[in-house]
């Protein structure tokens, strides 16, 4: 459900103060977070300070931003100055950055209220949030099931009405998939649309900051505020000034939508049914919907993992206990200290991916794995370019399945990788994609519909998503957290 405009209106009319609103959320978090494990750190003091400033500005009639005084959260891999930023890993226990991530800076200046940092799979590696050193986040619809990952905590909090919106990160589906599992909106823009400066890197050519919110309108509002060129991030796009909010209500009649067979075929029965129903809904709204085949989509997953692990092995090399984070105390040499620090403080999933990544870059294997994966990536990009000449957007399930049962994935190592099947291609090709709720399975768990667009077509896919949401309604949980 979209809340930002309504809350902004309430604040302007003084129906509620920012401090009161913040208090409501903090109380709800205190009550509900223990069972859900969405937040790993609640930043009460900072939240009230920001709310106070928002209230003062409102009191003197100063024009305040739409996002002023609106409570939100940040995934714990987004750098927050002087506040713990741990990536839910032991190795960054107690680490407080000395600078703010650009995305956070851009919201901070608008007096956004940071409720806290949220749970995630360690270093964003996982799809359940269970590899977190703090344990997994639960699905608010049914706490026997996971919230998804890696931005599990953020998605859980938004769905459980413990935050109005959140910023997460999406490398292989980490914003879209938990949003799908939890029944809220998860949006990953084009690679380069949002600055990565301050986002603790997992895989540099794949990482994207993403927006998680209760509805598409809220998503668009937040995205427009944080997107755009950042000189501190050389990969961010210059001349980019999105106005997705103002294009949400555009008529979608005549839009051409493609559905790749490969993803439909791999989906669970109920997921397939829900997605096909959504396809019909789009047709009813005047769109042309067509099935087509794109066999290379399936190959994206293993190629993605080669590149993601390779880049991760390099990005995580800096965690050696010398300059920041955890340092093991008893050692015989500096080399010993580094090895011990990493061995004792990285989780198993992280270690696995570092080893895989080191292997695929190593002498004798680089050509066979890494170079090959990059070459395939270039091919896939070209293919997508052609696909988007024909279609305005593609729709797919966000995930082949609904939420896993807690601890289920730990036992099925290869299976955990396969969960990213539908989300990975958008990261691989750097394309924008959004997940919106489109139904529930028989267990009452949400099903996510993914809309993928061409490069820098955020406005288009959010427009489609908005129209669908308008027609279909949302699936938000009415009886949890802060009720408006």
């Amino acid at each position: 459900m979209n809340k930002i405009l309504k809350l902004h209106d309430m604040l302007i009319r003084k129906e509620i103060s920012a401090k009161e609103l913040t208090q409501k959320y903090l109380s709800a978090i205190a009550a509900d977070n223990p069972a859900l494990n969405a937040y790993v750190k609640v930043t009460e003091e900072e939240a009230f300070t920001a709310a106070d400033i928002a209230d003062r500005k409102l009191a003197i009639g100063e024009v305040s931003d739409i996002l002023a005084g609106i409570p939100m959260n940040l995934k714990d891999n987004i750098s927050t100055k002087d506040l713990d930023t741990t990536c839910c890993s032991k190795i960054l226990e107690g680490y407080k950055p000395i600078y703010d991530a650009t995305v956070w800076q851009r919201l901070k200046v608008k007096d956004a209220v940071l409720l806290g940092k949220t749970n995630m799979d360690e270093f964003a590696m996982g799809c359940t949030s269970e590899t977190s050193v703090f344990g997994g986040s639960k699905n608010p619809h049914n706490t026997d099931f996971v919230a998804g990952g890696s931005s599990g905590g953020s998605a859980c909090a938004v769905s459980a009405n413990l935050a109005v919106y959140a910023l997460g990160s999406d490398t292989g589906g980490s914003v879209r998939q938990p949003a799908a599992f939890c029944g809220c909106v998860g949006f990953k823009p084009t690679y380069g649309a949002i600055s990565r400066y301050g986002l603790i890197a997992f895989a540099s050519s794949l990482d994207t900051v993403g927006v998680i919110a209760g509805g598409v309108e809220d998503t668009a509002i937040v995205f427009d505020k944080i997107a755009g060129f950042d000189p501190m991030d050389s990969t961010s796009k210059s001349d980019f000034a999105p106005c997705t909010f103002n294009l949400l209500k555009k008529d979608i009649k005549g839009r051409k939508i493609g559905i790749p067979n490969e993803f439909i075929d791999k989906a669970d029965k109920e997921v397939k049914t829900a997605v096909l129903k959504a396809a019909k809904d789009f047709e009813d709204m005047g769109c042309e919907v067509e099935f087509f085949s794109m066999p290379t989509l399936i190959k994206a997953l293993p190629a993605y993992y080669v590149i993601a692990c390779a880049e991760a092995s390099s990005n995580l090399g800096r965690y050696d206990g010398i300059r920041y984070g955890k340092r093991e105390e008893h050692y015989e040499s500096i080399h010993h200290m580094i090895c011990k620090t990493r061995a004792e403080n990285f989780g198993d999933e992280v270690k696995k991916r570092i080893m895989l990544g080191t292997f695929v870059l190593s002498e004798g294997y680089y050509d066979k794995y890494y170079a090959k994966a990059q070459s395939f990536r270039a091919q896939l990009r070209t293919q997508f370019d052609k696909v988007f000449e024909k279609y305005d957007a593609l729709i797919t399930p966000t995930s082949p399945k609904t939420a896993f049962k807690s601890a289920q994935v730990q036992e099925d190592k290869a299976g955990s990788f396969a969960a990213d099947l539908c989300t990975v291609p958008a990261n691989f090709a750097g394309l924008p994609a959004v997940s919106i709720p489109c139904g529930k399975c028989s267990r009452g768990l949400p099903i996510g519909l993914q809309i993928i667009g061409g490069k820098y077509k955020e406005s288009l896919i959010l427009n489609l998503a908005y129209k669908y949401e308008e027609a279909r309604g949302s699936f938000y949980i009415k009886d949890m957290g802060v009720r408006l």
Partner: protein
Amino acid sequence: MYKMTSGFETHVELKTSTKIFCTCSTEFGGEPNSHCCPVCVGMPGTLPSLNKRAVEFAVKAGLALNCKISNVSYMDRKNYSYPDLPKAYQISQFDVPLCYDGFVELSGGKKIGITRIHVEEDAGKLIHKNGEILIDYNRAGVPLIEIVSEPHISSVEEAKEYVEKLRQLMRYIGVSDCRMQEGSMRCDVNISVSATDTLGTRTEIKNMNSIANIAKAMEYEAKRQINVIESGSNVLQETLGFDEKSGKTYSMRSKEDADDYRFFREPDLLPIHISDSDIEKIRQSLPELPHKKLKRYTTEFELEEREARLLVKYPKVAEFFENAAKGVKYPKKVANFIVGVIFAFLKSETLKEEFDLKITPEDLKSLVLLLENGKVNHNKAKTTLEQMLLSGKNAQELLADDDLSGISEADLESLCASTIETNPKIVADYKGGKDKAIMALVGVVMRESKGRADANKVKEKLIELLK
């Protein structure tokens, strides 16, 4: 007879004011970790932003070394773990460097090929103190260029000249101070020996930071390799250090321990695009290089090559010379004074290079003009210049002080007359046919006038009086 084959990998710190990927100062020295920021210390979440000036400096270096410049080149990650490397990878260039295919010409005409020049970032510095390891990251992120030569060097003399030439050129074009003792220029020396046409196994002597040590290390290592071969063994391909005290090389690590750097394209940076017109603009901004200057000095100014070489060696000297020689009839005189008097005054090479004088080129020029106009003779001009260098006063001031603006006609006549009267024997010799005797009289007059008189004028006057 063993032949030596050697190639150099030289790291040169670029003297941009800020680091290669962040805006921290590159200034040498300073409190440890005072020129640092989240980016150059590799804090989580930070990203590099390429300093365009560093690229420009690197292109300048490439052009000065006769290289081709790549229109597109890429940055790559070189992964390895060491405490002075904050990100556990160095951002460098692997397979597509910025510059390639150049050369350095030695004085004999031999060309040492330059395989490539690439840009990369420097690492921090480890300091061992009281059993502890301290790390200063001030140097981390300082831009470097790595200049890789072909294995064309075949003697210690050539090696010394090669390094000297590189140093001179880099300083000339203003891209680096190349202060080896400060570490802004470091060499890794690859060396092998062979008695046949096939190349021997090479070893690498790392981090040489003085030309003297390079020479000593090469001499020692060549001998060592020859001994190994003569004793029937094989030279091991290994990385060596040089111990200055003992004058010996020592093993650092063998091939088995060689690092696999797992190079891959740096995803956080864009490819470096340089158009042909960009390259041309940079080429135009280069100062005249020493070998061109040398040619010009020997043709336009008609200087002797030996003298011209001394003038072109340091850009400040050349600049001073050219400014002083403007509008002067005999630039050679200006050259003489610089090489003969000023260099002798400055004594050391460092001072010559700095050429920090109390006088301006205009001051030297006016002195030379005085000489050309006969207002002062050569000896006096020389001593005047020496005084100018000491006091900073210009020629006019000093000459006025000393009343050295020559001697009046009347004084000259009376001085010559009195000299004739007091030296009858010499006069008799002269009148008797010994023409050369006049010079003895000239000598006396010169002494009496304390050098103020002009020797030619004195001779003329004496001859006139003795008619």
